[in-house]
């Protein structure tokens, strides 16, 4: 029988307000094996940890139960503390009486009963614990960054600068992401291209960075330190090395009716194209959906005119296999589709546009060369109305229930830029709330209102309709309690942003968790904001939640520093809670082999002595370096031969018994 010590934490009033601590301590004291039980306000503090260390020595404890918050929060803390006092770290069990009890119950009596049950379960489990020794695994000194926008590029540059090799996989033909489409950036109004394109060039020319564009990660296997990724490099139909980016093919291509994605469909592009002038790599790509040669086996003009002989219609998708120590997700965002908002008339009227479309219309490299004009007839607009929160803070099926965070600032930026360049244009902004938290952000907004004469109206817009060749915006002016109608030439919708559609697939491939909005979940909202709960997976940029460029760059750097912290290690300590097969019980059925997601189970032919019968049997063998301790095999095993160290079937049953016992 072990000597067990029980330590009940108050967590200030977090636990103590809903759980009767004295009762829990008293109940623990009478459990078999418990030789010491006490409580303290904050067990995780140095003073609390010292209480535990002293008790281990004084009462010769060889098992410890901490009744506190989730093991996710402080299991590592108390295991380390056990080690300091000479106890095997795996002789510590956590009873979660905060998240599982005090935070979800209001009734103290009910909470206390449940807390005692959970503590008894932990005591029952720890009395069956055995010391475990951690092993080691190696670290592949190379990182994979999924997404080549500003988030992915910044992360890649920071990792590369620290001396590690990085691959950036971008699904589009060029890196740059959404930021490449933007005209100017708030709150300083410097041009996006002037700050982004040098970074793109830096990434392309860095000796430690390899850009794998027009490619998607198809599968990922392995675990922290040793991931194996398969990357599909889509056929460009253009030899990336040979192409000089001269653009002759673009000029000669007779199929020029495809919507130009980079300009948000505001103009057309040829079937063979370079997405934009500063694209990296500056190499053409052929759109197989519209190319006459690829769809109807005619034409082939680009091949004839290409002096570099770079066009190759026989090119096929290519699969690249690489190994990585760490993976960073930087899949970014896209604006939502606004055609569901019938009342705002986006589908009916060409002059109702989205904010990203406005960026292209105001961009010197955009379809109008930076001249702001009506999409319908190219004439000069006199009145422009902006509508905020289109689909943001919207809990109906049309929108997103979160605040997209960037729209207040970019709408203010648009309003200011328009008033600055075209003082004859009247600009009105309909808003619900102006959210300009951030350094120099509110000052920026006030400048738009005070110095640039932008009219801000608190209220939403009910409908936008056409009358006598103009748009009429009917909206609420809540401050003057009126329903107003404003004549407009253009209406700009601040569409909500959503996680890029690829995020969901990437997350499930990496077994990284996502929330209901397909944003990747961080390991801890406050203390581990750039790590996924899955070891070795890191988060950069909007894939984790809406954020602007400064925040994205900061988070990208933070993700890089976490990756560097991992890659500098030569060895990682592995989790000793791995599966183990009992050779007396194993029948060699392969159920565990088939279910194991990590490929950790193999078989060997082995001579066994089963109660005097000596025979050679086919037995399952677990590779502890690959096993991640998920326990799937122990559930699948029909003969009960598979067990998970630290979570043996016996331990789990003992916990269940303890909870069920009255």
């Amino acid at each position, binding site marked *: 029988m072990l000597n067990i010590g029980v330590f009940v934490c108050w967590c200030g009033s977090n636990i103590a307000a809903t759980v009767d601590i004295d009762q829990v301590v008293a109940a623990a004291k009478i459990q078999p094996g418990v030789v010491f039980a006490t409580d303290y306000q904050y067990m995780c503090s140095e003073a609390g940890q010292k209480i535990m260390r002293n008790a281990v020595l004084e009462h010769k404890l060889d098992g410890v139960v901490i009744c506190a918050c989730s093991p996710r929060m402080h299991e590592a803390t108390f295991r380390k503390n056990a080690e300091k006092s000479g106890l095997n770290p795996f002789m510590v069990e956590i009873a979660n009486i905060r998240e599982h009890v005090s935070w979800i119950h209001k009734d103290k009596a009910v909470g206390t009963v449940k807390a005692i049950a959970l503590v008894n379960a932990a005591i029952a489990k720890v009395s069956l614990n055995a010391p475990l020794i951690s092993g080691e695994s190696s670290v592949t000194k190379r990182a994979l960054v999924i997404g080549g926008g500003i988030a992915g590029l910044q992360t890649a540059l920071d990792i590369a600068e620290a001396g590690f090799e990085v691959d950036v996989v971008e699904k589009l033909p060029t890196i740059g992401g959404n930021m490449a489409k933007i005209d100017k950036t708030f709150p300083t109004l410097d041009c996006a291209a002037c700050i982004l394109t040098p970074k793109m060039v830096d990434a392309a020319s860095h000796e430690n960075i390899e850009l794998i564009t027009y490619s998607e990660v198809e599968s990922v296997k392995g675990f922290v330190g040793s991931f194996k990724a398969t990357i599909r490099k889509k056929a460009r139909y253009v030899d990336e090395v040979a192409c000089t980016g001269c653009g002759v093919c673009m000029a000669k291509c007779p199929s020029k009716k495809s919507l130009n994605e980079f300009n948000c469909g505001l103009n057309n592009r040829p079937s063979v194209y370079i997405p934009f002038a500063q694209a990296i790599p500056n190499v053409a790509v052929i759109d197989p959906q519209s190319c006459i040669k690829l769809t109807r086996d005619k034409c082939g003009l680009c091949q004839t005119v290409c002096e570099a002989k770079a066009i190759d219609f026989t090119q096929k998708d290519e699969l690249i296999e690489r190994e990585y120590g760490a993976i960073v997700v930087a899949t970014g965002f896209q604006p939502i589709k606004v055609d569901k908002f019938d009342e705002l008339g986006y589908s009916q009227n060409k002059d109702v546009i989205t904010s990203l479309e406005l960026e292209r219309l105001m961009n010197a490299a955009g379809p109008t060369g930076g001249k702001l004009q009506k999409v319908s007839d190219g004439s000069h607009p006199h009145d422009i109305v902006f509508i905020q929160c289109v689909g943001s803070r919207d809990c109906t099926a049309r929108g997103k229930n979160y605040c997209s965070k960037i729209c207040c600032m970019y709408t203010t930026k648009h309003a200011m830029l328009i008033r600055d360049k075209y003082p004859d244009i009247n600009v009105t902004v309909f808003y619900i709330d102006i959210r300009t938290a951030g350094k120099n952000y509110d000052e920026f907004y006030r400048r738009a209102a005070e110095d640039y004469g932008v009219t801000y109206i608190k209220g939403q*817009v*009910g409908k936008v309709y056409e009358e006598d060749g103009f748009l009429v915006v009917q909206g609420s002016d809540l401050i003057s*309690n009126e329903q107003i109608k404003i004549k407009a030439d253009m209406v700009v919708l601040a569409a909500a942003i959503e996680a890029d559609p690829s995020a969901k697939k990437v997350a499930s491939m990496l077994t990284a968790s996502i929330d209901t909005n397909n944003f990747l979940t961080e390991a801890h909202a406050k203390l581990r904001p750039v790590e996924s709960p899955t070891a070795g997976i890191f988060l950069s940029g909007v894939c984790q939640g809406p954020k602007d460029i400064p925040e994205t760059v900061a988070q990208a750097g933070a993700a890089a520093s976490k990756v560097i912290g991992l890659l500098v290690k030569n060895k990682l300590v592995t989790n000793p809670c791995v599966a183990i097969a009992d050779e007396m019980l194993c029948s060699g059925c392969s159920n565990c082999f088939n279910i194991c997601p990590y490929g950790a189970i193999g078989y060997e032919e082995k001579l066994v002595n089963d109660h005097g019968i000596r025979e050679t049997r086919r037995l399952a063998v677990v590779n502890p370096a690959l096993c991640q301790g998920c326990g799937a095999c122990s559930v699948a095993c029909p003969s009960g031969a598979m067990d998970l160290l630290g979570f043996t079937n016996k331990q789990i049953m003992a916990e269940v018994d303890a909870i069920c016992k009255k």
Partner: protein
Amino acid sequence: MHKNNLKEEIIRISGASPNKCMKCGKCSATCPSFNEMEIAPHMFVDMVIKGRVEQLVMSDATNHCLSCFACVERCPRGVEPAHIIEAIRVIKLRQSGAPQITPAQIASVIDTEIPQQALVSAFRKFRK
């Protein structure tokens, strides 16, 4: 009825959720009867939240709501202002005594081309 009970009654009858309102004004921006209503749809929601319900019951504004449900359709938070107005009308009806038109009389006065929703609204207004 006590003020708070009246508020609870409105919420119960309407099934609406005034606390979900984020005060964006989309309901009043949409409302085709805005200029006829002395209390606009967004104010109905706000006044129910604040418990100023007697004022709503007294108001003539309920009679100008067309029950077009544009505010319900477009509210980004699922507040359902028209259902709140509807509930207030129901409360008014219950307070005003016996109906002044019998079911037997209805068939002779309606035009079958009128949408049912408009009919229901019209009944409420003409029974004063």
